């Protein structure tokens, strides 16, 4: 148990930075705030690396370190500790969160350097790191929920960071409210599980769950579906994805950190963390897989037509998250987490690169007014190209390995329809990502005069993180190459976590797959990606009129895509309006008449009574004391009765 002591330091360091930031206030200065935030997260990252190394030194069977900091509450049978769990799964997560987080913090010092309120920005960012690390390190549902809500709060605060802008404020509220719907599911699922198992602690719950719940039983199915509802909210899946694209109103580093690399993957992490429960409920797994696949395809189609560089990336994030859920749904949790990690690298890079572009363009986000930036922004361009290749799934870039593993798992687990959807999504991904790349960096410059004038490559504080992330995007996938005897290294690392449930389903274990089929699948997905890329080149570089023609021919489809299938409007009419009007009606009748009536009635009654009682309230202290003493004398007389 002493493999990694002082785990609590990992979340505590950012929290300490938050407190220092709060206490010292403006005395920190702009530079000081940045240094403090980066330093805290950097230390946290270093400590995470150290802890994970210690964990890796343990024998495989013991790689689950629980460190209890203190007992949070003890009510009846319920006993919740603030305790942290470090196992291979959370190890991956803390490395990704602190590592990518650190890079993004560094990047932010450059990106936000013109921002007046940079201290508040880093305050929120560090608070987010604290909440996210609490979430991934928690060893029970309740502590996880604390982190879960914490990241939600920080997401809200950061989306609305520029609260003077109505759009940002509205986007923040939207994210918050949509997340609440998911959280409601999470809470209900948590309560259900607690009611049946009597514990909130993960390991204990996973031990008792197989005995308590028959496989496919109604309770576990409902509970896991509710948990998954929470995951759809946090991870922006159908039908609760709507907040994520709007979240792009926040500063770009926030989009990179929270809405691409870390927070939105919390749902995937949660499903993977509770995989024991999900494996007991095949129906839920099926739902997870189908929702994931549907989201992957659906979001990819929307991504085709967006013009805002960050929105394309946002829909791509939704789509990629769909892939992760797809993997979890077909039982390939390892593949899901693998994709989570690689996605964190290349999507963070994409966002940071996009941020660098936006920074260079003095705030311009519309790709129609970009183009030809490759020469002017060489570093950004290089990094973006790496990331785009990675997400498109070209070997040997990181995204290829993980996406391929997901598709292969879907195929071999007997979900050919899902596989087809995934493959279709991959084509679209390759296409819209290269559309983004080409529109931004290639072709003829379509810049406004002013943007042209200010165009400049970003400062080193922004380029260095890009470079590091580019390296990771290129090489990150090599920890999990396919066609390895006994699973690739990444799978072996995660094996202690996922081994417990994997043997039941029997699928998803890569080594049972015939090699020839797998080669064929790899070839197919590379081919598909290449086709998407080729089409993108044709449509946007070699003969731009193709795109125009296509847009005219399919104008209805294009309008639907451009307007995101009118989902926001649908929600507005089916959910928001009815709720609003019902509330209005209730307010008119119930609040003003009944509630206010009771309150006013109480007031009137009290006024009447006090008009009489006031006669005793003379204001003479002596009289009060006299009456008081009289009471004491009478009481004592009562006690003196024989």
């Amino acid at each position, binding site marked *: 148990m002493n493999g990694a002591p002082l785990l609590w330091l990992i979340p505590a360091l950012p929290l300490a930075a938050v407190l220092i930031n709060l206490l010292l206030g403006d005395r920190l200065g702009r530079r000081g705030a940045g240094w403090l935030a980066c330093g805290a997260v950097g230390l946290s990252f270093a400590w995470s690396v150290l802890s994970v190394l210690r964990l890796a030194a343990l024998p495989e069977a013991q790689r689950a370190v629980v460190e209890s900091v203190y007992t949070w509450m003890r009510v009846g049978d319920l006993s919740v500790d603030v305790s942290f769990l470090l196992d291979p799964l959370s190890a991956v997560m803390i490395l990704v969160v602190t590592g990518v987080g650190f890079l993004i913090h560094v990047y932010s010092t450059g990106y936000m350097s013109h921002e*007046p309120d940079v201290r508040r920005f880093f305050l929120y960012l560090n608070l987010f790191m604290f909440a996210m690390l609490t979430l991934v390190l928690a060893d029970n549902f309740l502590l996880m929920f604390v982190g879960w809500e914490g990241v939600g709060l920080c997401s809200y*605060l950061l989306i609305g960071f520029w*609260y003077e802008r109505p759009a940002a404020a509205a986007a923040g*509220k939207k994210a918050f409210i949509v997340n609440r719907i998911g959280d409601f599911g999470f809470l209900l699922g948590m309560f259900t599980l607690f009611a049946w198992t009597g514990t909130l602690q993960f390991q204990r719950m996973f031990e008792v769950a197989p005995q308590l719940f028959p496989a496919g039983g109604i309770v576990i199915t409902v509970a896991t579906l509710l948990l998954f509802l929470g995951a759809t909210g946090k991870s922006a899946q159908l039908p609760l994805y709507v907040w994520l694209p709007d979240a792009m109103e926040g500063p770009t580093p926030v989009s990179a950190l929270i809405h691409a690399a870390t927070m939105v993957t919390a749902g995937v992490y949660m499903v993977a963390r509770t995989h024991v429960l999900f494996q007991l409920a095949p129906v839920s797994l099926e739902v997870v897989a189908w929702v994931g696949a549907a989201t992957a395809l659906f979001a990819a189609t929307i991504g085709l037509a967006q013009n805002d560089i960050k929105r394309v990336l946002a829909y791509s994030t939704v789509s990629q998250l769909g892939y992760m859920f797809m993997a979890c749904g077909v039982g390939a949790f390892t593949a899901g987490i693998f994709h989570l990690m690689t996605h964190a690298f290349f999507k963070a890079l994409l966002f940071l690169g996009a941020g660098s572009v936006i920074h260079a363009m003095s705030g311009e986000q519309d790709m129609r007014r970009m183009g030809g930036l490759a020469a002017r922004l060489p570093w950004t361009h290089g990094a973006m190209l790496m990331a785009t290749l990675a997400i498109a799934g070209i070997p040997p870039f990181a995204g290829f390995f993980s996406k391929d593993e997901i598709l292969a798992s879907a195929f071999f687990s007997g979900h050919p329809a899902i596989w087809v959807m995934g493959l279709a999504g991959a084509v679209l991904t390759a296409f819209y990502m290269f559309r983004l790349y080409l529109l931004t960096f290639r072709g003829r410059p379509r810049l406004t005069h002013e943007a042209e004038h200010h165009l400049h490559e970003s400062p080193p504080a922004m380029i260095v993180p890009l470079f590091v992330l580019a390296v990771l995007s290129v090489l990150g996938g090599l920890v999990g190459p396919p066609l390895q005897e006994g699973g690739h290294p990444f799978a072996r690392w995660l094996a202690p976590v996922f081994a417990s449930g994997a043997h039941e389903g029997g699928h998803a274990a890569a080594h049972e797959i015939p090699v020839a089929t797998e080669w064929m699948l790899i070839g197919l997905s590379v081919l598909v990606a290449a086709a998407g890329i080729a089409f993108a080149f044709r449509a946007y570089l070699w003969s731009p009129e193709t795109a125009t023609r296509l847009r005219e021919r399919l104008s209805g489809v294009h309008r639907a895509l451009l307007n995101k299938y009118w989902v926001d409007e649908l929600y507005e009419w089916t959910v928001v309006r009815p709720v609003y009007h019902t509330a209005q009606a209730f307010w008119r009748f119930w609040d003003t008449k009944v509630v206010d009536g009771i309150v006013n009635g109480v007031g009137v009654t009290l006024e009447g009574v006090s008009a009489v009682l006031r006669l005793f309230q003379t204001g003479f202290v002596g009289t009060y004391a006299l009456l008081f*003493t009289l009471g004491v*004398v009478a009481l*004592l007389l009562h*006690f*003196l009765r024989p």
Partner: protein
Amino acid sequence: MITVLFVAFAAILVVSSLLVILHRNPLTSALFLVLAFCSLAAIYLLLHAEFIGLVQVVVYAGAIMVLFLFVIMYLNLGHDVESGVTLALRRGLGWLLGAVLVAEGALLITGRLAPGPATPQALTAAAAAAPGNTQQVGLLLYSRYLFPFEITSIILLVAMIGAIVIARGLREPAPAEAPAGSAPVTAAAPEEAPGEDA
């Protein structure tokens, strides 16, 4: 010997505290109260509560009563003027109630407690051998009563702040000293912002 001393101090205590409430001059009252506290401290010493006895002198006689003295001197209070029918009535009632209360208390104490042990239990060997009860009181304060002790310190802090704020009296609030350089953008509390349109 101890009994004699106790009776003597008790007599001083009762007489001086009676004079506290009888004397018309508040300053004299306060001085008699000091005397009462000192004799009470002596009684504590007789009860082997050395620490409490001396703290009684330091805190009550040395600090609290000086404060009283200070305020009386500051307000320059002379003899109280006391007259009036209602006052006389209240005064009569007060003495009556006080007498009844003493009688009741005496009855309770003699009637109910008489069967119990009239003399204190013998000191345990450890308590008798200890160098003094200061250490033991301190140990108790910092172990079993740590939380109340901390609360007490907060009470003192609050009282200190409260006393300063109240005694400063009503003053015109100082004009807001905002340096002209500080930008109003940062002045807007960011935490409140999301609530503005909620």
